[in-house]
């Protein structure tokens, strides 16, 4: 594959932000611009990571899922008919991949959104991350007791930029009008769990 070097100092995504920037990168990447791909990977890997982690995958499995999603993206880059829909595509692809890698017992029954809503996650806590103090531990426990649906929504809405978080919520199949209230309920539950863990501050 030939590489189109951005010999000028001004790649087409320069000065752009959010969806515009990523769409410009997708278009450039289609013509073989490797720098554009690298920009997308650098800027959107945290999003893919948090979708995978919010789906209850341990860190090792989440790493594989992140790589698999980006490799799959290479194949789909020409077929992504709307470059501005990249974030939505990544969220959907990551959720699908996360479900495939679910443990065999759970994979058989499938993890539907309805099940996810009611399943209190016991995975997803940072088994190898450094929890520096009691407050961190309380926060992790409280967060881990939320439904997976809440964990996923809260991670993504904190992470995604304002322009993109609606796209994210749409990819989670939450009706636009209920994004705020749904997240509000999740936050209220998180506060309740935090209080039960001995206070949030």
């Amino acid at each position: 594959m030939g590489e189109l070097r951005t010999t000028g100092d001004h790649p087409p995504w320069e000065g752009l932000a959010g969806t515009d920037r990523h769409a410009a990168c997708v278009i450039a990447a289609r013509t073989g611009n490797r720098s554009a791909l690298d920009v997308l990977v650098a800027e959107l890997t945290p999003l893919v990571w948090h979708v995978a982690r919010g789906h209850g995958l341990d860190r090792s499995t989440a790493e594989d899922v992140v790589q698999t999603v980006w490799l799959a993206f290479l194949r789909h880059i020409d077929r992504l008919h709307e470059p501005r829909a990249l974030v939505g595509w990544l969220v959907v692809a990551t959720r699908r991949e996360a479900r495939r890698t679910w443990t065999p017992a759970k994979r058989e029954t499938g993890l539907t959104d309805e099940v996810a809503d009611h399943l209190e996650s016991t995975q997803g806590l940072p088994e190898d991350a450094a929890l520096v103090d009691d407050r961190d531990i309380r926060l992790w426990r409280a967060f881990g007791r939320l439904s997976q649906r809440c964990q996923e929504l809260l991670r993504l809405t904190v992470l995604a930029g304002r322009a993109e978080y609606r796209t994210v919520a749409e990819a989670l199949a939450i009706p636009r009008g209920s994004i705020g209230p749904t997240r509000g309920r999740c936050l209220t539950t998180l506060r309740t769990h935090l209080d039960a863990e001995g206070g949030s501050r």
Partner: protein
Amino acid sequence: MNDIDPRDDPRGFEDTAVLSELTRLVYELDPPPADLVERVQFAIALEDLDVEVARWERAGSLTGVRGGQPGTITFTVDNLTLMVNFTSTGARHRIDGWLVPAGEHTVEVRVAEHESTTTRADDGGRFVLPDVPTGTTQIVVHLVNARGERGRTVVTPTIML
């Protein structure tokens, strides 16, 4: 950092104290591994972008082969199975592999910051790479059909060896 749009919250559900905790959680307590972006960039720096991804079969266990432990890993995609066994030979590795269905497929082992090593599987689908450098590793299989014609390309996610 909190991109909270007040228009989504007409009834004041949001709790800024909890939101700041949440931000800390996402950005500080559970960020992606520091080298993950670099590894993805290595994994996708392929000649041919039209690849199929083989998935790591963990057989129900959540623990994989990490941190240089020897062992066998199985990858699958569609009807293809790739089994690879890694044996440490000091600073380097011996790789014994087996492809099912068998065929004289070309197997390329990419290691970050090293030249690729390439071999061809025998008619039983087995291949050996006796001396592979240690590092972020990816296996690329160029499949051939029964008539020896080149077919699709299958890649694995990177493995840390």
